[in-house]
């Protein structure tokens, strides 16, 4: 009996400990406590990277510390921030455009069968085609302009947003629509009060995947047009075989991707917290 009680005591004790720790240190400790598998995974990965890098002495595999040092060097020149801002600008413009137009087209396709049938082939083709194939065409059309990079970001994010919005609106809970109708709801009210909120979890999933794809689009656009932004840096450094700096830019890109996706995720949680247990189940 005593043994079976111990774990419960342990839990309650650690919880009271947690509550006692306030302030910044407490928050960090709480974070580590909650996310320890993730934290361990990342720290372990870094440690392994450092170890192999140091043992190998291989110029194409610098240890983590060398990459951090390279990152600091680029940062000190001030170029990192200006390139980052350039990249983020094309991300923001391309993604916003994809969200606005994607939600509009997805909604229309979800509500009207004919519109869906008309656009279905286009959306399907573009979802499965690697967007990279468009880069030469866009390059030919718009040249080395900002527009090219915005459009690439847009193309990466747009179609997944359309498909998720369409699916969410199309698969709306029919019994809720009937319920609203029984209380005399107009078509507009059914759309605003039932269809949109019911579709929101799927729509937000589309926006989240869209964001990760938009970051890919941002980098690919810059890599292949290579004028500005982090992608351009990536190209310059890999051209001169400065692997530490390549990896430093790569780390920056990863951080951008994680932060951007986290922002969308936070908005998602705010809006669709009610669906959490449904999604978990």
């Amino acid at each position, binding site marked *: 009996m005593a043994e079976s009680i111990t774990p419960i005591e342990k839990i309650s004790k650690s919880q009271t400990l947690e509550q006692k720790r306030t302030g910044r240190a407490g928050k960090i400790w709480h974070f580590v406590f909650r996310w320890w598998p993730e934290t361990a995974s990342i720290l372990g990965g870094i440690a392994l990277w450092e170890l192999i890098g140091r043992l190998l002495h291989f110029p194409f595999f610098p240890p983590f510390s060398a990459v951090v040092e390279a990152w600091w060097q680029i940062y000190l020149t001030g170029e990192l921030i200006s390139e980052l801002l350039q990249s983020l600008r094309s991300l923001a413009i391309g993604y916003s455009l994809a969200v606005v137009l994607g939600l509009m087209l997805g909604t229309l396709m979800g509500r009207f069968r004919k519109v869906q049938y008309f656009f279905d082939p286009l959306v399907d083709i573009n979802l499965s085609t690697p967007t990279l194939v468009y880069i030469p065409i866009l390059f030919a059309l718009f040249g080395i302009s900002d527009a090219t990079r915005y459009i690439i970001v847009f193309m990466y994010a747009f179609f997944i947003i359309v498909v998720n919005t369409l699916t969410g609106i199309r698969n709306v809970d029919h019994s809720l629509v009937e319920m609203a109708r029984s209380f005399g709801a107009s078509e507009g009210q059914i759309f605003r009060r039932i269809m949109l909120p019911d579709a929101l979890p799927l729509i937000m999933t589309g926006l989240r995947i869209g964001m990760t794809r938009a970051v890919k689009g941002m980098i690919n656009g810059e890599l292949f047009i290579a004028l500005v932004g982090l992608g351009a840096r990536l190209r310059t450094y890999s051209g001169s075989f400065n692997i530490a700096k390549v990896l430093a830019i790569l780390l920056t890109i990863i951080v951008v991707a994680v932060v951007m996706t986290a922002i969308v995720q936070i908005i998602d949680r705010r809006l669709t917290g*009610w669906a959490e247990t449904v999604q978990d189940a």
Partner: protein
Amino acid sequence: MIEISNCTKIYSSHDGSNQVEALDSINLSVKEKEFVALLGPSGCGKTTLLKIVGGLIPWDKGSVTIKGKQVTGPGSDRAVVFQNFALMPWADIKTNIAFGLELQGKSKAEREARAIQLIEAVGLKGFEDRYPRHLSGGMQQRVGLARALAVNPETLLMDEPFGALDAQTRRLMQEDLLRLHEQEPKTVIFVTHGMDEAVRMADRVVLMTARPGRVKEIIEVPFGRPRPKDFDKDPAFIELIDYLWDVLKTMQVLDGTTENETFSKES
């Protein structure tokens, strides 16, 4: 008050090759403040009939009138209680209950006041700000009932409202609904597949047959309101249930189709 005469409903597949006669020449009149139970085997079209009265689906022949006026769609004089509760999972209990009022454009203050009044009436005090997923099935259907009552309808249309609940919860809900009905009688059409539920709740039981759905018999329930104490131990109660089962038993068609499959042909 509600007059259904020669009402026929045919579901057909998209190309029209497959036709199912869900309702065949239904005649039924429901008096004001009367509690009528529609009882029948799966596929007898009882839910279809309820939805026709609710203005949710059109019919093909005959007429359906309420207070002399043809039913053309849903109206604020009727409110539906759904078998699967049909609560909005993203809205709290208060908002769910006030949904009908919100659609009518009532002010926020008015909605809140009415919602709180009904939350108390159905015994959900303290759950105003919770979400449907926090509630048990029985409590969810209390919300469904409160939402219907909130718009103060003359007619309640209840589609197997307690069908998804466990036996104990169902009995509790039946007793609560009886109490509410005795306090403030409304016209009720109550779809059920429970023989004892029909007799327990209704003034009249409409026994229907399946494929096509027809009215087989209308039976007066010999118990007044408020129901006498222990009326469910009365031999007349047990006899009536036995009789209903004897008739229903002969109608059970073992052809493998269910009510839902028949209905899915409409969409």
